[in-house]
């Protein structure tokens, strides 16, 4: 029988059939039964929460306000809990938690288009070597591993549809792709239907495994692996299905995070981090405010501020900020110049990224922009520098650790860039 090297899109759709397969991958579960061992493993965790504000959040209405300047906009700056650091009035909750945060105000990147910028930022914009680098989530999944959670290492909580997003993995191969939870829900048809007994389900799975042998014989090895991996993830998620039921959480939690998409998804992210998932990405869409930007910001920014601050507060209360690196990022910032539609356009030239948690200094600002916010005043930081920073925060030395791509050693971050030392603990 000829081998078919190609997958169809449906091969990667995560359905019940896809998910209800192998129970493999539950490595370490027996050890977790011992509370002392489990506690020790928790302490050793290295995790990441990556909040992606798709479209580009304005630095001027968030982390780097320029009040009463030509491009400053209508909003006031407010004092944070760290003397001398002010942020926008649209972030009152984050202002209270500034003591945990680090802001890099001197980010300067290369792309002002979404289509190129999203990938370029999330892949760390390394030197071009003719290979597709992994997104940060896939990179961390590879470099840190799945840990002790018994859950997939890279979970992406996002609006709209979900599935297994293998393209994120680049040359690492599909198994380091993202399991995307559309609207924060487990993949469709994940649960065993009530009409089906466990025995019947086992029989179905035996049949599936048999059929999968045929499937595997016709595919390239890495794709077969990815396929099996998806089954393993399904089985893992099924064992933790209670994670997705936010309705049983205290009403206070739901109020603090908000009942809108971003609030619900951040609350789910907290649950996933608590369960030990290595890398959780939360995406919010709709930040591309070319028109009526300031009213847009007045609506959007508080919906980031509250759940983000609630997350930081909760992670701190649980002692998890020692383990979890938290990053709030986008593909670029927004223009200082205010257009005729009272919007701000795309601006990679001088923008801000916020972070907190593992390996990150608390209550600091690194870098600065000029008085008008139109240029980085000194030492611009490209995304490669931020990748260095984040890897170092996770205890990975980018000058020492390399990927191996079929025998080709590849640096994990742009080798000509350096970490932002001012924000590293």
């Amino acid at each position, binding site marked *: 029988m000829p081998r078919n090297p190609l997958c169809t899109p449906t091969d990667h759709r995560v359905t019940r059939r896809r998910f209800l397969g192998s129970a493999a991958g539950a490595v370490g579960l027996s050890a977790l039964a011992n509370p002392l061992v489990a506690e020790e493993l928790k302490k050793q965790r290295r995790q990441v929460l990556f909040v992606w504000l798709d479209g580009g959040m304005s630095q001027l209405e968030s982390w780097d306000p320029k009040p009463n300047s030509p491009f400053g906009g209508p909003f006031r700056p407010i004092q944070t809990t760290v003397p001398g650091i002010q942020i926008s009035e649209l972030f009152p909750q984050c202002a209270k938690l500034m003591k945990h945060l680090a802001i890099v105000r001197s980010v300067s990147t290369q792309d002002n288009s979404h289509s190129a910028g999203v990938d370029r930022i999330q892949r760390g914009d390394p030197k071009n070597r003719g290979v597709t680098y992994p997104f940060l989530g896939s990179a961390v999944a590879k470099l840190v591993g799945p840990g002790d959670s018994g859950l997939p290492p890279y979970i992406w909580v996002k609006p709209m549809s979900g599935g297994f997003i293998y393209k994120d993995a680049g040359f690492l191969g599909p198994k380091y792709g993202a399991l995307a939870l559309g609207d924060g829900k487990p993949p469709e048809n994940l649960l065993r239907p009530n009409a089906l007994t466990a025995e019947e389900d086992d029989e179905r799975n035996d049949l599936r495994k048999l059929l999968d042998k045929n499937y595997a014989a016709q595919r390239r090895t890495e794709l077969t692996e990815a396929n099996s991996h998806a089954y393993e993830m399904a089985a893992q998620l099924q064992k933790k299905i209670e994670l997705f039921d936010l309705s049983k959480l205290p009403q206070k939690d739901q109020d603090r995070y908000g009942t809108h998409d971003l609030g619900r998804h951040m609350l789910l992210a907290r649950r996933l981090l608590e369960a030990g998932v290595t890398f959780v990405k939360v995406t919010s869409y709709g930040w*591309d*405010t070319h028109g009526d930007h300031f009213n847009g910001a007045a609506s959007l920014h508080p919906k980031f501020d509250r759940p983000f601050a609630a997350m930081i507060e909760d992670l701190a209360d649980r002692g998890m900020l020692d383990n979890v690196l938290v990053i709030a990022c986008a593909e670029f910032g927004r223009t200082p110049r205010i257009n005729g*539609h009272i919007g701000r356009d795309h601006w990679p030239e001088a923008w801000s990224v916020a972070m907190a948690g593992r390996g990150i200094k608390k209550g600091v600002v690194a870098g600065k922009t000029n008085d008008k916010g139109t240029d980085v005043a000194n030492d611009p930081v490209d995304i490669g520098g931020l990748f260095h920073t984040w890897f170092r925060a996770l205890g990975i030395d980018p000058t020492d650790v390399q990927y191996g791509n079929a025998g080709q050693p590849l640096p994990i971050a742009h080798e000509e860039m350096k970490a932002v030392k001012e924000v590293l603990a």
Partner: protein
Amino acid sequence: MQPKKAPADPNMPKELGKPLAPGTQVTRVRFSPDGKMLAAACFDGKIRRWDLNAKDPTELPLIAGHNGWVTGLAFAGNALFSTDSWGRLTASDITAKEPKLWTLEAAHDGWARTVALAPVDSPIATCGKDGFVRIWDRANGKKINEFETKTDILSVCFKADGKSVFAGDLFGIVREFEVASGKVTRTLEAKELHRLERIQDVGGVKNLLLAGDGKTLFVAGAEPKTGGFVQCTPLLFAFDVASGKRLSQYKGANDTEGYVTDMVWHKDGFVAFTTSGQPGQGKFHFWKPGAATTFFSGGKLPNCHSVALSPDGTMIAVSATNANSSGNGRVKGAGGDYPENTSPIQLWTVPKV
């Protein structure tokens, strides 16, 4: 042979001179009650003024002191009331060298959206993002009453008898508050003006206007199609004040025209209004209530944000935006600099209708 130039249509507005150049962007323009002065509320926290007595308008000393953006302007005699996006309300004597009469630094917590005058010798009203409508004594700035909606209130205007105010919010709701009691006496719905797009509340009642006879309330904004870029079609409703029923509406042709940014009532029975537009678009318009479309839509300058009518009804001022105001990345000016956009203000004649 040159083609013969068509004679100017006497029924169409005509430009009066070159645009005024405030050098910054403008949120509101208003004429003084005697028609001799034009004032512009600016993005740089200043109010610019022009003397219209001279052959060519002459810029007068600016009024400083506001923070963020100056958002609202209303003249009453020699007094000019102004609000800003940091919550300040100021009364200025436009004839004085030191124009400040009184000021309230925190009339609102943050963005004060606008200021409206009641009929003669009555109070003024402001509204804000903080969800409050506040009524002030125009003589001294003393608070008379306040009403809270807990929603962002974008617009406010008094009823003709001055005994109640209409306040329009982000969600397309217009509430009528009784000034004396602070009670909501009724609500009018214009929910087409709001859309929840993903997690963004878009639109709202951007403007309220009472017709000259006080019998019709105009409620304006846009029908939003998206958040972010904000594609939206201008939408303007006429409500019968007595019954609260909708009488008629004007809807723009497409979703690139933006929202209604400002409007004024002309004594000849029409509304003059401006639209924001996508970059390079946005006009000023004349609309007779009940008509299916406008009887004038134009203006050479795009992205219009305010319109003012001279007291005698013969002249309007429209603030717009310079060309090529948008662009991703570092769009450079002619001198290689990174320029601020500006709002040229064009004066026009108003045709007899």
